[in-house]
């Protein structure tokens, strides 16, 4: 492969090539075409902001046009007031981008720190956008103004200054429509490049982790809320950049972008181009806009009819969008090399510094759900470097108790101490950072990511150093016996292997305390036996609490056992002793419960 070819095909150089091609194109087309292309690129930039937050981070925002529109208004307000004296609109542009980012951050804080997720985010962002639509529409009249800039209600703000850089010797020299094209292409190219770099950083992998499995990421010790907030604010800033440039492009702004059809259109751009592909954002925007603009000049009254029909056709014939279609075609011609992400350095053992393990205590924990006490005043002490099992029949409160330790539930009363310090109301990621590793019952891994990337994410949460995280990760893979499958997607592993991978992820974060919820659920007998070994191995370097109901597994672990029943502690001791305990037998054999309390 020649050097030129390699440069052309490298993911980082591709946007540069496209950008240069677009700039070159600017030399050969008319002014009018440049104006039109500029608008398409602006919409592509807007779509890019959505693809970043939705395609890459999994946040389904219906509100990108809110940030776009708010920034356009801000640009107008600042530019109308400032540019006549300053002779530039750079201030306005930066102010608008900043404003949009702050708005997105505020909305993001409101949503993510309230644990709002999924489709609910879509509705909150949509409703917020519609609030802007209503408020801005009703600001008709000269009394609604910011300085010299009238908001203008439904008619909007008009005669907004074009972009001006105020270079020395060119005061008040407004950008011509054609210059705007050049500027827009440069800004879009730079933004795209910045997004690529962001996604290739450690933070970028965390973002992918959030998209793939939010809970797991939190349990690894990442602050998911903060990661989402950052990416949402970045998306807001990009949408804001598009909005500010739009205001300078068209010299007007009105509330129309805040309407439902406008905000849905951004989603359509991204879907058509291919969600998560980034480049698809531009391709989708250009395709939709080119189609509707062209048809609007040739069809008497069937524009939307044809656009709609084509969309349906694309969905049926080209699933996944245009970019996957093209890469699929190119892939046939230029076969892609398998991913060869090399690990730097030799595998390191996960245990870095001798013997570890810390104490965990629960004091009088109560958890009530609407009057029903699922956990009723339970106190348990897990001394450092001990293995402890928690058993009980279905509905005994095992899972609730586990979730209290993990931090997914907040107790109604009582305290949880870690090395003597209260952690009762800490978030799961905060507990994870203090060294509490958690494995849930259902395998919670990143199915789309490779096995190696899974453990890397876990290690990176602790060491914050990419090469070192890779080394720790590989050490763990050796230990859980998955090193041969390091490059496979984690979703391809067998059920038992997925459980081990998750234990490996817990291990990679070098925890002091390990909480395991039914680690052998769904395993074959052989796999269970291997897991016993693994868990006992873990207990040599950390405090381990296992919640189980597989009695054979518990017996083989040979550890102290606590039996929970109806939210209370029924009995404690070695399994062999408990087998002679009448109360425990009653519960397990379903005999009539003799206790008076009930």
């Amino acid at each position, binding site marked *: 492969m020649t050097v030129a070819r390699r440069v052309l095909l490298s993911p980082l150089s591709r946007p540069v090539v496209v950008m240069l091609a677009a700039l070159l194109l600017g030399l050969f087309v008319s002014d*009018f075409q440049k104006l039109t292309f500029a608008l398409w690129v602006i919409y592509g930039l807007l779509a890019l902001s959505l693809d970043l937050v939705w395609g890459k981070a999994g946040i389904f925002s219906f509100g990108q046009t809110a940030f776009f529109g708010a920034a356009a208004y801000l640009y107008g307000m600042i530019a109308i007031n400032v540019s006549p004296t300053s002779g530039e609109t750079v201030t306005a542009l930066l102010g608008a981008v900043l404003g949009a980012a702050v708005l997105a951050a505020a909305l993001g804080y409101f949503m993510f720190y309230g644990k709002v997720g999924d489709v609910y985010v879509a509705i909150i962002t949509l409703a917020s956008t519609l609030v802007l639509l209503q408020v801005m529409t009703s600001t008709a009249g000269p009394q609604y103004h910011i300085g010299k800039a009238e908001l203008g209600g439904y008619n909007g703000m008009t005669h907004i200054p074009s972009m001006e850089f105020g270079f020395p010797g060119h005061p008040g020299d407004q950008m011509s429509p054609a210059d705007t094209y050049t500027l827009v292409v440069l800004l879009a190219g730079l933004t795209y490049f910045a997004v690529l770099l962001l996604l290739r950083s450690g933070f970028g992998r965390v973002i992918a982790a959030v998209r793939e499995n939010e809970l797991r990421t939190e349990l690894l010790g990442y602050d998911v809320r903060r990661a989402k907030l950052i990416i949402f604010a970045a998306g807001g800033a990009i949408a804001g950049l598009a909005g500010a440039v739009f205001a300078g492009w068209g010299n007007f702004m009105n509330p129309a972008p805040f309407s439902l059809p406008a905000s849905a259109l951004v989603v359509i751009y991204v879907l058509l181009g291919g969600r998560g592909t980034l480049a698809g954002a531009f391709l989708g925007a250009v395709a939709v806009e080119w189609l509707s603009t062209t048809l609007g000049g040739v069809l008497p009254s069937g524009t939307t009819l044809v656009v709609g029909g084509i969309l349906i056709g694309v969905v049926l014939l080209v699933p996944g969008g245009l970019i996957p279609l093209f890469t699929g075609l190119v892939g046939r011609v230029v076969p892609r090399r398998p991913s060869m992400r090399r690990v730097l350095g030799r595998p390191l053992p996960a245990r870095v510094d001798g013997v570890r393990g810390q104490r965990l205590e629960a004091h009088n924990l109560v958890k009530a759900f609407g009057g029903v006490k699922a956990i009723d005043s339970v106190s348990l002490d897990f001394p450092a470097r001990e293995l402890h099992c928690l058993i009980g029949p279905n509905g005994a409160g095992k899972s609730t108790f586990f979730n209290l330790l993990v931090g997914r539930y907040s107790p109604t009363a009582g305290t949880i101490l870690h090395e003597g310090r209260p952690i009762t109301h800490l978030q799961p990621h905060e507990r994870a950072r203090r060294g509490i590793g958690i494995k849930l019952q259902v395998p919670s891994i990143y199915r789309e990511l490779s096995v190696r990337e899974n453990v890397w994410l876990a290690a990176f949460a602790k060491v914050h150093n990419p090469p070192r995280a890779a080394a720790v990760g590989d050490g763990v893979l050796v230990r859980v016996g998955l090193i041969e499958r390091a490059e496979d997607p984690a979703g391809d592993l067998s059920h038992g292997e997925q459980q081990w991978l998750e234990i490996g992820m817990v291990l990679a974060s070098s925890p002091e305390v390990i909480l395991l919820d039914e680690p052998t659920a769904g395993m074959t007998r052989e796999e269970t036996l291997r897991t016993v070994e693994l868990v006992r191995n873990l207990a040599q370097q950390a405090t381990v609490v296992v919640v189980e109901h597989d009695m054979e597994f518990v017996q083989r672990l040979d550890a102290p056992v606590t039996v929970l029943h109806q939210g209370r502690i029924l009995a404690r001791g070695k399994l062999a002793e408990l087998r002679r305990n009448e109360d425990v037998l009653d519960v397990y054999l379903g005999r009539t419960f003799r206790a008076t309390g009930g």
Partner: protein
Amino acid sequence: MGRDELNVTLASLAQGRLSRRQFLHGTGVALGTAALAACGQTATPTSTEPVAVGSLLDATGPINIYGTPLIDATKFAIDDINSKGGVLSRQLKLTSFDTQSTNDKYVQYANQLMLETKAAVIMGGITSASREAIRPAIDRNKQLYFYNEQYEGGVCDKFVFCTGVVPSQQLSTLVGWTMTNVGKTVYTLAADYNYGHISSDWVKFYLSQGGGQLLGVDFIPLDVSDFASTITKLQQRKPAAVMSLLVGGNHIAFYRQFAAAGLQDKMKIVSPTFGLGNEQVVLAPNESKGITVSYPYYQELTNSTNQKWVSDWHTRYGSGYPYITDSANAGWVGWHLWALAVNKAGSLDRDKVIKALESGLSFDAPEGTVRLDPKSHHLTHNVNIAQTNANHGFDIIQTFNAISPDPQGQCDLIGNPDQHTQFTPSLS
């Protein structure tokens, strides 16, 4: 020129002494400057080639209720002008675009008409938002532009002519008529946007002048179609008349829910907007019974120009055509006024045509004779008060002649030709 500039740019680029500003400018405009330079000066009058003219209207999307009649009127007017010899003995060649009820399509197509088609005149725009979206580009390119739709008034721009009726014309007559014939207490329901806000100010102004009483104003967002609470409120306040400044498909629901609640016997609806979106067609006659409106044009006008126009319209578009609206008349007037002015100026030169338009031009329109007010670039209309009838149409009950479009004299484009603004009335 374009080529030279490019060479200069490349040369200075090679010598590494090009400012960023020059670079942006060079790569951006080089080949396009010639196009800009040509703009505004259309071909010489001796040519026999067709004259390019442009139209921007919404054929699709929610605004097409208003766009469709204007599109029909535009085609009809162009054919009519061409059948009578065109302008300066040249035929008109219409380039029209479907703006799809989106404002940035307006901007794109306006640019296309100015920079590529080099249209001698552009007509179009339905909502005020669409007009305000293209006005910056119109002013930048010094393009002659006609806006042929009823709107909130106040546009004062040398390059812009507005042939639609404005609230002061409709409301001075309608509010007066209401106080004499219905009662002095009025409750206003206004669409929550510029037209509604400005018109409701006019209602208040004319009411206070005539000794009427405004019981309240409710602004209703454009996407509301549930009027239950409004109807309860009206019954509590008991106005003699409800002034409806409601607009659009969703607001049609108000008239229906008003009638169904049995309010027709208790209070009367008067409106300067009812009918523009063919509300009287959508509603059953018993639901719209007694609603009183004020427009320059109705299909039922009996003057001979209108009778011929309506019959030609029905020949062209079929006798089943819903109802020919006031906007259709305004579109027809716009094209003919422009053609008259070009022929009077003997040239397509923009400044000469504007001068001819400002010469007190008048035209025998379907609505009656209209005169272009030179100072404001708006029309002096005859305004007719009319009431809905049993045939989804209107019966005219009173005519007010020659109502001025700018009663406050805010706009004087003869005295201040460089003005490019939109006034709001000062009515406090």
